[in-house]
Structure formats: structure tokens, C-alpha cells
């Protein structure tokens, strides 16, 4: 069976200081995310060549 070709990845973080967003069509910069969990990936580079859905979330 073909593996899924996209991976939902949740990103925890502080809400950003208001700034202007990079839009659709822009290249994603070198991403520095820490402590990947529930995945064998060690860095964002490991997702290279795959479609990735990042969801920013927080809880309180």
C-alpha cells in the first residue's frame, strides 16, 4: 500500500510578534524546529520531497 504523501506536523510556539507574512508561492526558509516527537524525523530537512501540513497551535 502506498504511504501517505503528506504529513501533518504540529508546531508549538509562542504567537509571533505582529509582522508581515510570507505568502503562498514563497520558498520555505531553513526551518529550525526543536525536539521532534512522534516521528522518526530529526529535523525539518528530513521532510524534504514530501508535502507537509504545518499546524500552529497552542493550548491554555
Amino acid at each position, binding site marked *: 500500500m502506498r504511504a501517505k504523501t503528506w504529513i501533518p506536523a504540529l508546531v508549538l510556539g509562542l504567537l509571533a510578534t505582529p509582522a*508581515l507574512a510570507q505568502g503562498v508561492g514563497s520558498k520555505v526558509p531553513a526551518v529550525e524546529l526543536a525536539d521532534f516527537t512522534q516521528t522518526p524525523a530529526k529535523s525539518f530537512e528530513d521532510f524534504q520531497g514530501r508535502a507537509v501540513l504545518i499546524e*500552529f497551535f497552542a493550548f491554555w
Partner: protein
Amino acid sequence: MTDEGASETEKFVEETSMRYAYAYDKGGKLARYFGVRGIPHSVLIDASGTVAWAGHPGSLEDRHILAATAGALPKPLWEWNGAAKAVKTALLKRDFKTALAQAEKLGEGDNGPEILAAVQGMVKARVETLKAAQAKGDYLAAQTTAAALVKELAGLPEAAEASAIAAAIKADPKALEVIKGQQKLAKIRGRDLTKRKDRVEAIADLRKLRGEYLSTYVEVEADALIAQINAMQDDG
């Protein structure tokens, strides 16, 4: 607001039976890059590493996912073992010539044809992204992408295409002037816009820049950024 540590996060993950991969965006750098101002907020990145869609996860549609997964690798790099490991190593080094050569050696049992097609698709998608940037007059992106592709695609025919586009931009005074404008615009984009007076000043600067670069991609970008800042003001 999340500034809890790992112990609280792990508790939350366990309580909600969340099974997705997660990581920490320490300092909110990535959220800032994407201009996240409310949650939940999602960003869909396609197989070539380009932002394909962004917004509230509830508005994500199948067509967005289908478009983003076109040409994606059949399985993630960490699952590439055995014979496919050499392809993985080359991809992580962004050495596409070696990746293609190694993929060609793979047999059916190692998903060789699928992996080869996916790596070919990655090369094609990168070149198409570059051509699209040049075609719409986004010379800064085209220049940056071309420089990267000349290295990443070294030894492949597509490297010559990237090289030709880089040379064409370098020889075009109008393109170089647009790049200067885009660099000025990038500085405005990076400003902290927490205070209203900073937003007003940014809009004034963008309007001035827009006026200096009418009918170029700077005008397009300036309009988009002004709209974003106005939306911030609407939020108060």
C-alpha cells in the same frame, strides 16, 4: 498562548490522543515568518518546498492537498534504507545528479521506478518554480533560486537552464533595479509592527516604494503587504 514546557505539552498530547508529529518553534521564528496572528493556523508546503496554501485549517480543501502532493516522494527519507539509502544521502546533500544516478540503480523491489520518478519530479518542480518566478517578474526569488539550483543541479542539463536565467537577470538592468526595490521591501516586511505608528510608517514607506516601482513585481508585493497591514489595523 504556549510557553509551557515539554511536560505540559506531552500531557496535552496524551490527553487529546494527538498522533501527529510535533515540534517546538522556539522563540516563534517560524510563526513570525508566516505571520501567524491567530490559531489554529495551518501552512501547506508542497513537495518542492514552496508554500502552497495557508489559512485556517477548516478551509483547507482536497484540491489544495492534491496539488501539494504532486511529485512528492513515495515515502519519507527516514524510511529509505538499504539500496535507497544512497539516494537519501544525496538528497539530503541536495546533490540531485547523484540522487538520480543512485535512483536509476534501484530495482523494482526497492521501489526504484517510483523513487526515480519522484526525484525527477523534484528536479522538474524546482526548475518550474524558477521559471515561474522569472516570468512574473519576481527577480529576487528567481536570482536566489537560480543560484541555489546551479549548485543543486550541477552536472544535469537543468543546471544550464538555471545558469542561463541567472545570467539573463544579471545582464538586465531593469531586473537588477527591481531586485533593489524588492530588497528594500524585504526590510519593511521584517519590521516589528506591534505599534500602530510603526504600521502607519510602514504603509507610507510601502506606498512610496510602490510609486517608484510601478508596473513591476515590487508594486504587486507592496500592494499585498499594505493589505496585510490594513488587516492588522482592522484587528486593532
